[in-house]
């Protein structure tokens, strides 16, 4: 049961990495959205520092959303998705492997990059670590939620916009907890509660959302 999932993980990562522009687009999008904030709000360091956690988190949520748009689209168009649905292992595990591959190649780069961008906006020391940590726990939840939306809107005209409407409201709790953790750290308040809650969200999402993704995929394929 593990081998097919390993094959899928390897295949998806190598497909994303060979295409390269997907990774570059998402990373560039993330950076550009964050740089828009100083341009729009003004360069005062104190103001930028205040909005930094929210800016980075909003940018990460939007980048996650645009990158997930195509999570199943290619496999659906060329018939691979049918084959995945008919493979011996449960479709939910297959979906989980696909989301994991997607997060490793498109979500993790954002986590790694976030301390640099946080620093540019004036965050320091422990705040940067909390920022990266909150993204590390939060972006997989965003990926799983987005994958449900991607599966539901497969083959729908204007699916990307519809997916944003469906999924962005569900991103709210993650966004509040993630940005909240960094805010707490900035006021030297205990930030562990926020991180624990993010971890709890991830622990709930990890076993449950793949089932929802598989259900949505089956309806799309029917």
């Amino acid at each position, binding site marked *: 049961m593990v081998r097919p999932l390993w094959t899928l993980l390897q295949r998806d990562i190598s497909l994303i990495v060979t295409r390269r522009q997907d990774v570059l687009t998402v990373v560039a999008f993330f950076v550009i959205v964050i740089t828009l904030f100083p341009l729009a709000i003004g360069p005062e360091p104190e103001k930028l520092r205040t909005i930094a956690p929210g800016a980075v988190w909003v940018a990460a949520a939007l980048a996650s959303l645009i990158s997930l748009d195509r999570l199943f689209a290619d496999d659906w168009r*060329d018939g691979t998705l*049918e084959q995945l649905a008919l493979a011996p292992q449960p479709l939910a595990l297959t979906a989980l492997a696909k989301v994991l591959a997607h997060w490793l190649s498109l979500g993790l780069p954002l986590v790694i990059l976030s301390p640099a961008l946080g620093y540019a906006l004036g965050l320091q020391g422990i705040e940067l670590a909390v920022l990266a940590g909150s993204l590390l726990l939060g972006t997989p939840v965003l990926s799983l939620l987005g994958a449900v939306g991607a599966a539901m809107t497969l083959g729908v005209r204007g699916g990307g916009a519809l997916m944003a409407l469906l999924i962005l409201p569900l991103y709210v709790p993650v966004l509040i907890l993630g940005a909240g953790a960094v805010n707490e750290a900035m006021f030297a308040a205990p930030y562990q509660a926020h991180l624990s809650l993010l971890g709890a969200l991830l622990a709930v999402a990890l076993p449950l959302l793949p089932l929802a993704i598989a259900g949505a995929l089956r309806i799309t394929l029917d």
Partner: protein
Amino acid sequence: MDAPSSEQPAPGRAGIRSQADGAAMTLEAERLACRRGELHLFEGVGFALAAGELLFVRGRNGSGKTTLLRTLCGLSEPARGQVRWLGQDIRRLDERAQRQMLYLGHQDAVKDELTPLENLQVHQGLRGERSTLDERLDALEQAGLGGCEEIPARYLSQGQRRRTALARLLISPAALWVLDEPLTALDRRAVAWLFGRIAEHLRRGGLVVTTSHQSIDGLPEPRILELD
């Protein structure tokens, strides 16, 4: 069907495994009714296909051939009725029964970025099947892809992509083949080759369900299912 098995089995391919637990190797459809949206395609379709039998689904465009085949392999849910494979409901197959079925749809499930060899390997990996490199190369050679095993599929013609997909049949241990319009984009030689493979698969006790708008002269005597 008991045609003489004078022909040598192809090298590098496992025979159809007998069902160890004694579940009858049959594909049964019971009073199937299907519809797409508001459109009622057919109802009351039933048959039992046994080992070594070929079912040919015939019907005009839009009569529901593809829907029937997708229902038979469990991708679509019938409005009424049931499909059973190895005695299990097709929508709830266990791992072993799922492995015994291979579906080839309109789309080839061939990735542009990967070579035929990689495509074959990934496809097998996803099904948890194992084969050696020699077996895969041999399958591609037989499918008429000798010389383009290492070329990314985006540079291949439609017919060559189809052959890449069909090469799966050669190294899969699955007993039931569900082939939707397998002749599309194939040239005459490839068609003759595929008919030969289907005949051999039936002789080994496999089951085949297929549909085509082209002539099927050259295939073993099929059971015909007419949709109208």
